[in-house]
């Protein structure tokens, strides 16, 4: 695509400018993707270079260091204690003792089991006293994987702390050489509410995130490479073990699978993914434009009772979704109020099965999108109201003096302003809709069921999103956790790709400091 200068751009008529913008957005996608690949490559190269620098620094600190520094390489914190920084030194030493103790007592065991995920499953033993067979439990694959990952975390944390301990020795030597005083334990404690206050504030939130989000995500990503499911729960029936890329092959294979159903996993996956993207697109943009229109209608000069109109809409946000959505789904049931109403009006003579008719998947899908408008408009209305009020009114005034019509004012002032301000919001809203579990699950539960898809894949339906499908696989009769994990990884890949491409192709990546 030919690039044009700003002056040429300004000479273009309005519609051509838009066309140019759209074209340049798409034209920049390949460049953005390439830039991304380059960035990742550079990051990896940078990582190795960084490790190299660290190692050379560790070696040179040892060579040039004093005796306490050298001893600190084995006994962490010795250097600190020798120089009078007792608090730091004791903490370092304590950490080392705990680490070594843990590795000897438990960590080494878990780590050694990690490659096999356990050798012996439960065995049947005849109990002479009770005259029955009982089970004796041995290895537990689940725990091995979990504690194996934990141990690796712990080792990484130890290496990092060891490195910090060495760097501190180096810095302390430099400070002493320059004739200054080292920080005492009291100074350290004081800095926790002052210079290092961020560490104090972040300690609790970050611990929570690492333990309850990072660790589980790593665990679940690893599960995609095992055969962990209801019949291999790693404890009371069979152990599970590593299966390499088998699960990904299953998910992406085009051969109809043998466990019921005529559709291959890949076809099912493709269908669900396509619907997920269509859903996200319509759910985002219908709400966006209609919500904006409603906000403008309420904001219009001369409209009274503004507050009342807003409050009526806002109630939908306040009322918990499980009540409103479940109730609405019952309203649209075959014997529900909606059908009764339509029949009373004489519009239809037979009840419409909105969510149950597998021969009309699009009826259910369109209905879901329409009901989602009911849910989404209030939120967008609120947001748009706030932003609309921020548009400088003199823009409209001067437009009116120049004789601009209402539509011109909207398309040349309101819409561009809204789009500019809410660009990032649209992206997060799109990805949020891709993972909009509540609306789909509570409204349709994924129905109508796709009978061609394998029942092993959790009775996936025509309105199922990837996220509800994942839930169905997890809680389905066979509990194919490994498959759920594969779907989860796929969701991540799709969402990440969309996010990265849109972000790097957006004309200006906003600098967050600009706002401050």
């Amino acid at each position, binding site marked *: 695509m030919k690039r044009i200068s700003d002056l040429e751009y300004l000479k273009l008529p309005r519609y051509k400018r838009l066309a140019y913008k759209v074209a340049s957005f798409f034209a920049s996608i390949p460049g953005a993707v390439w830039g991304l690949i380059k960035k990742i490559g550079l990051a990896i190269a940078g990582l190795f270079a960084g490790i190299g620098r660290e190692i050379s620094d560790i070696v040179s600190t040892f060579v040039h260091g004093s005796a306490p520094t050298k001893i600190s390489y084995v006994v962490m914190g010795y250097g600190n204690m020798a120089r009078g920084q007792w608090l730091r030194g004791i903490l370092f030493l304590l950490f080392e003792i705990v680490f070594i103790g843990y590795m000897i007592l438990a960590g080494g065991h878990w780590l050694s089991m990690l490659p096999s995920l356990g050798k012996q499953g439960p065995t049947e033993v005849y109990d002479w006293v009770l005259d029955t067979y009982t089970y004796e439990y041995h290895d537990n694959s689940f725990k091995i994987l*979990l504690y194996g990952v934990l141990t690796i975390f712990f080792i990484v944390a130890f290496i990092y702390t060891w490195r910090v301990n060495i760097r501190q020795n180096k810095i302390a030597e430099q400070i002493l050489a320059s004739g200054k005083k080292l920080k005492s334990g009291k100074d350290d404690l*004081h800095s926790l*509410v*002052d210079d290092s*206050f*961020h560490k104090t504030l*972040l300690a*609790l*939130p970050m611990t929570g*995130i690492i*333990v*309850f*989000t*990072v660790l*589980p*995500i790593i665990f679940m990503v690893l*599960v995609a490479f095992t055969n962990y499911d209801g019949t291999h729960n790693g404890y009371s029936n069979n152990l599970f073990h590593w299966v390499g890329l088998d699960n990904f092959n299953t998910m992406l294979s085009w051969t109809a699978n043998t466990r019921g159903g005529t559709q291959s996993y890949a076809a099912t996956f493709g269908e669900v993914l396509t619907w997920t993207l269509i859903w996200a697109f319509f759910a985002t943009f219908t709400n966006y434009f209609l919500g904006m229109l*409603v906000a403008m*209608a309420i904001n219009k000069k001369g409209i009274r009772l503004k507050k009342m*109109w807003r409050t009526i*809409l806002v*109630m939908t*946000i*306040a*009322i*918990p979704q*499980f*009540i*409103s959505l*479940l*109730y*609405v789904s019952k309203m649209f*049931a075959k014997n529900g*109020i909606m*059908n009764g109403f339509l029949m009373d009006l004489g519009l239809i003579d037979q009840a419409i099965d909105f969510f149950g008719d597998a021969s009309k998947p699009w009826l259910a899908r369109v209905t879901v999108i329409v009901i989602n408008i009911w849910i989404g408009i*209030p939120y967008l209305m*609120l947001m748009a*109201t*706030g*932003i609309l009020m921020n548009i400088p009114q003199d823009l409209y005034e001067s437009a009116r003096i120049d004789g601009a019509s209402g539509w011109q004012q909207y398309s040349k002032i309101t819409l561009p302003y809204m789009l500019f*301000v*809410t660009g*990032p*919001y649209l992206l*997060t809203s799109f990805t949020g809709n891709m*993972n909009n*579990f*509540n609306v789909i*699950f*509570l409204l349709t539960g994924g129905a109508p069921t796709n009978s061609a898809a394998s029942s092993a894949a959790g009775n996936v339906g025509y309105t199922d999103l990837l996220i509800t499908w994942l*839930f169905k696989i*997890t*809680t389905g009769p066979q509990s194919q*956790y490994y498959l*759920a*994990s594969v779907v*989860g990884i796929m969701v991540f890949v799709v969402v990440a790709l969309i996010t990265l491409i849109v972000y790097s192709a957006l004309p200006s990546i*906003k600098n967050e400091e600009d*706002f*401050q």
Partner: protein
Amino acid sequence: MNTAAPVKRHMGLRASRRAANTAIYVVLIAISVIWLIPFICILLQSFRVESTNEVGYVVPHVWGFDNYVNLAKTDFWRWYRNTFVIAICVAVFQTVIVLCMSYTLSRFRFKMRKPIMKLMLVLSLFPGMLTMIILYRVLADIGLTQANAVPGLILVYIASSGMGYYVSKGFFDTISKSLDEAARVDGATRLKVLVKIILPLSKPIVIYTILTAFMAPWGDFVFARYISMGTSKGMNVAVGMYNWLNKDQIGSRYTMFCAGGVLVALPVTILFLMLQRYYVEGVTGGAVKG
């Protein structure tokens, strides 16, 4: 005669504006009806006595409080208490955690800041539901599922709440940094700056965070269901009442669902409408900041 023409044009303008406004009123009334109908239906049906099943009409033939009274015969009030306890705890702890996180990321410049924000972004791209399986197994191991699901749920909700820092970070970004710097020059510690200067200015965002944190547990369904897993004792209202609309229960529980729905929705809605202003500020600010 000379003045007639402008007057007429003026009248024409006013008439057309009035026509436009009338059209808008019609649309707004239609919208209000559509938005309110489900709630009015729930309210009306919760007073229906003659049948507990789904019926094709809305206005009850026989009115009464039977459904509300009958709620006491189920586990409804236990679920209600569970949800309330969860909501209160989450509101308190989540607010503290979110404020710590967002304040730090907004105000401090340290080496790990950008990496932490990038990590949060990457984590948010994973479907949260993925972690359900392992969290369930771990909670089960320490005995915090099923009948003891309430503390388990509280733990899970608040542990990862630091990830939702965007909106309040956006708010802190708007507070001028020169305030901090002036106080720092006067010798105040970072802690003092936070407590004495920033917090008093942050009332809107604190209320917004408390409000959203308090409301979320009332609607949470997936996680609560998985963790309470069929044990009525540990359920929250969403999970318990969801089961009432199962094929085999709906016949006897449909109107009770409506009555329970009214009891759940009323306090939450009133609270929300009272604090609406803060919510609107949060939503608008959050959207603008992205």
